[in-house]
């Protein structure tokens, strides 16, 4: 099931990028996708971590939420950058992630880094060291709102 969806996805990617639909090129694309899936199986990267199809339904609602978060924190960082006094108060903190799967942990760490104003500096098991440019950003991450949201996204499998 996972292999079939991976092959289908790769073939769709081929069709989208090529833009030419002659029988020869379509056959070549199908063969290439199947070969890629076999390579991925041999590399052991077609597992739930490498191709997490279970997360698809969660992702549909998670990504719009993440975009809103990015817009909000991006605007606050913009205000800090353009403020004449440059009021930065860099803070380092440690947060605990409650996700269980590697894909969930990676999503949480990447979401923290992707929102402007906070960066995951170090990952140690499920403890993330986070650097924030203003103190409120660090407190916001410690508050765990995003952690709960990512856990829900992970649990929506």
């Amino acid at each position: 099931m996972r292999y079939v969806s991976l092959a289908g996805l790769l073939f769709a990617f081929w069709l989208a990028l090529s833009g030419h639909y002659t029988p020869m090129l379509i056959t070549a694309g199908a063969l290439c996708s199947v070969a890629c899936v076999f390579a991925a199986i041999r590399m052991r990267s077609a597992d739930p971590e490498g191709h997490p199809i279970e997360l698809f339904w969660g992702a549909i609602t998670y990504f719009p939420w993440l975009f809103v978060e990015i817009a909000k924190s991006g605007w606050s960082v913009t205000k800090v950058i353009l403020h004449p006094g440059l009021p930065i108060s860099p803070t380092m903190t440690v947060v605990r992630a409650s996700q269980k799967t590697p894909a969930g942990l990676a999503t949480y760490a990447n979401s923290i880094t992707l929102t402007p104003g906070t960066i995951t500096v170090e990952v140690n098991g499920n403890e993330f060291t986070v650097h924030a440019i203003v103190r409120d950003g660090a407190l916001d991450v410690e508050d765990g709102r995003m952690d709960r949201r990512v856990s829900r996204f992970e649990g929506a499998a």
Partner: protein
Amino acid sequence: MRLAVELASWGFILLGSFFTLVGAFGLVRMPEVFARMHSASVLDTLGVGLLIAGMCLQAGFSLVTLKLLFLLALFFFTAPVVTHALAQACLHEGIKPRLVEDRRGTAGPRPSDPDDGRQP
């Protein structure tokens, strides 16, 4: 309808240009490397995202839109990886971030040996 799409794409592209400029300006203005990463992430997310959204509206529903969306997905998956690798490399190289408050000891358990370099 056509006019509304046109206006929206104008707005997105101008906002995207604004955030791109702000991010690059912060890259020059910020005092140290960790602070600079934050302004680079404004550029990577808001600037790129809004510019691509504006171009998508301009292109209409076609293969070009799909390619733009691939580009956006590529950015959203690779930008945090690069930023994280950069921040970790900085820390391990011994560059101390200038901190107003260090909550690593108070907020939670201390990370064990910081120079492990091993990803779980």
